């Protein structure tokens, strides 16, 4: 019993129509903030709340920030904006390498400069009835605001959330409290479905639209799933960033030239290819699954 839109094609049109709005570049700025709160929500997972009232007003679901490390010696860290309410934004991140560790060493009261908000964000306007959000690992940080926006529009939101083990399913309860239906998966079976989250996704009823954020292999599986079923899927990609603001072309992904997100680029003499490289940081990070050529 499939539950996606009775007419996926028309749904897709509505959704595409809203693209120019979603793609309008946010008015980003260099935002000096102060750390309001810091907690280790699980081992090696940090939640930092920062004071940034002006930023809250400008953030849309799926935006990210470049967190500038104090000392200015290492490149900034791209982080999804997890929460944005009142005076406070928050960042949720894993202690992965040197840069996130430095960020994790900050304490309450310390200053933290952000370049934000950045990226295009998820388009929540057209996808209002029944949405599956698929999050893998740290991808969870980029989907709370979209979930809230969809719920506020009255949509049914199911969160398909996968992680290595139960303790890595951070903030799951938070999503339930917001009104999401939780569908959890762990690689070791310590909580929820024993396997990868995309398997779980395929076992359940399909939604009208899919939003996803997580590691590339997961996104590829989501993409295959959605295209097989002709469900519009918005994927928030992760690539290694240099600048985060469109200046270095370090973060590209191949997309079809006809995409509204394709940067203008002449056809290649050599192969007349219909693919161009779009920057994940500016044209993305959210791309339509069917427009990617990765």
């Amino acid at each position: 019993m499939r539950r996606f839109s009775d007419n996926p094609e028309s749904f897709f049109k509505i959704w595409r129509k809203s693209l120019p709005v979603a793609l309008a570049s946010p008015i980003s700025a260099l935002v000096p903030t102060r750390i309001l709160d810091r907690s280790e929500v699980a081992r090696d997972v940090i939640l930092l709340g920062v004071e940034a009232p002006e930023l809250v007003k400008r953030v849309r679901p799926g935006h990210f920030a470049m967190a500038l490390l104090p000392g200015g010696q290492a490149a900034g860290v791209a982080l999804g904006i997890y929460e944005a309410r009142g005076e406070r934004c928050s960042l949720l991140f894993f202690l992965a390498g040197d840069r996130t560790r430095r960020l994790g060493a900050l304490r309450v009261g310390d200053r933290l400069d952000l370049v934000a908000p950045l990226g295009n964000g998820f388009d929540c306007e057209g996808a209002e009835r029944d949405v599956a959000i698929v999050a893998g690992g740290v991808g969870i940080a980029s989907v709370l605001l979209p979930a809230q926006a969809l719920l506020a529009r009255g949509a049914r939101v199911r969160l398909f959330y996968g992680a290595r083990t139960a303790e890595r399913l951070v903030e799951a309860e938070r999503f339930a409290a917001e009104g999401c239906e939780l569908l959890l998966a762990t690689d070791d079976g310590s909580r929820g479905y024993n396997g990868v989250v995309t398997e779980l996704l395929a076992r359940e009823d399909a939604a009208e639209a899919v939003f996803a954020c997580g590691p590339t292999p997961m996104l590829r599986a989501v993409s295959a799933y959605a295209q097989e079923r002709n469900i519009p899927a918005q994927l928030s990609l992760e690539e290694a960033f240099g600048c985060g603001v469109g200046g270095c072309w370090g973060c590209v992904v191949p997309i079809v030239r006809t995409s509204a997100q394709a940067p203008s680029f002449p056809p290649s003499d050599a192969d007349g290819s219909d693919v161009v490289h779009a920057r994940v940081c500016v044209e993305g990070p959210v791309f339509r699954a069917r427009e990617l050529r990765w």
Partner: protein
Amino acid sequence: MVELSKFDLSARIGSLVLPYPTVALSGCYGSGAEFAPYVDLSRLGAVVLKSVTRRPRMGNSTPRIVHTPAGMLNAIGLQNPGIEWYLQHDVAKFAQTPCATIGSVAGFSVDDYAYVCERLAARSEIAAIELNISCPNVAHEGETFACDPELTARVVRAARATTDKPLIAKLSPNVTDIATIARSAVAAGADALAVVNTVRGMAIDIYQRKPRLGNVTGGLSGAAIRPIALLAVYEVARAVSVPIVGQGGIATASDALEFILAGASAVGVGTANFADPRAPMGILDGIVEYMTQQNVRRLRDLVGTANTGFANINQIEGDEG
């Protein structure tokens, strides 16, 4: 903010005089416009544009960037729309930034350089041309032009014949003897030298057991290479007398001053912009603070002053190890 007007901070690159010695480097600051929301571009000496080639290039596959201790590897692969499209769609926009715009030309043959240089230099928006001869030259089996004094000379000579605008040759650190290359570039007509481009390097993913960069190898930049780049500037400054745009890991005013004392007339900031887009402006402020403290009014009076006393680096006794 410091009072800049009391100081002469200008830097000369051939006939081009920059009001400030701080230059945002090719490939690291877009056209400048990308950073306009975060900084005051009028406080920048110049922006060097991303290198442009004769034909459009998609660039390398990803990952194009790997972060490394105190630096990063990149292998963008000169993604660019090619000179025709560039002249038609991009150059006019670039000129809107309130600082000088320096074009950067890359190529795969001597002809390429001459062709692109001529077309780009013809545009009034472009104040000077940098020849990026430090990227692999597929026509010569992976060797870059800047690894060979003769190839360097040929590119510079060909480009020189096409324009009177200031010509900057960008040298590679991946050579046994950079002074020889520098002499060759200057003899062939370069008005200034950019010293240095990235250092070749690589990283391996031990779980996937394959190189981390889509392109296998890449260029190392950032603070990690600063001592290497500084020595290159020091050696080039002893070999030639044209202005040098020192670059490689400069992030602070103190870093920049090391390069200036070693012989650079201007300083380039690349990777440090990814840590903080305000880096070039902070460096300018810090240079002025230093000049105040040291009672120096003209920046050029500092250039190469750590250099005096040694006629030739090879005559210095002792050795490494």
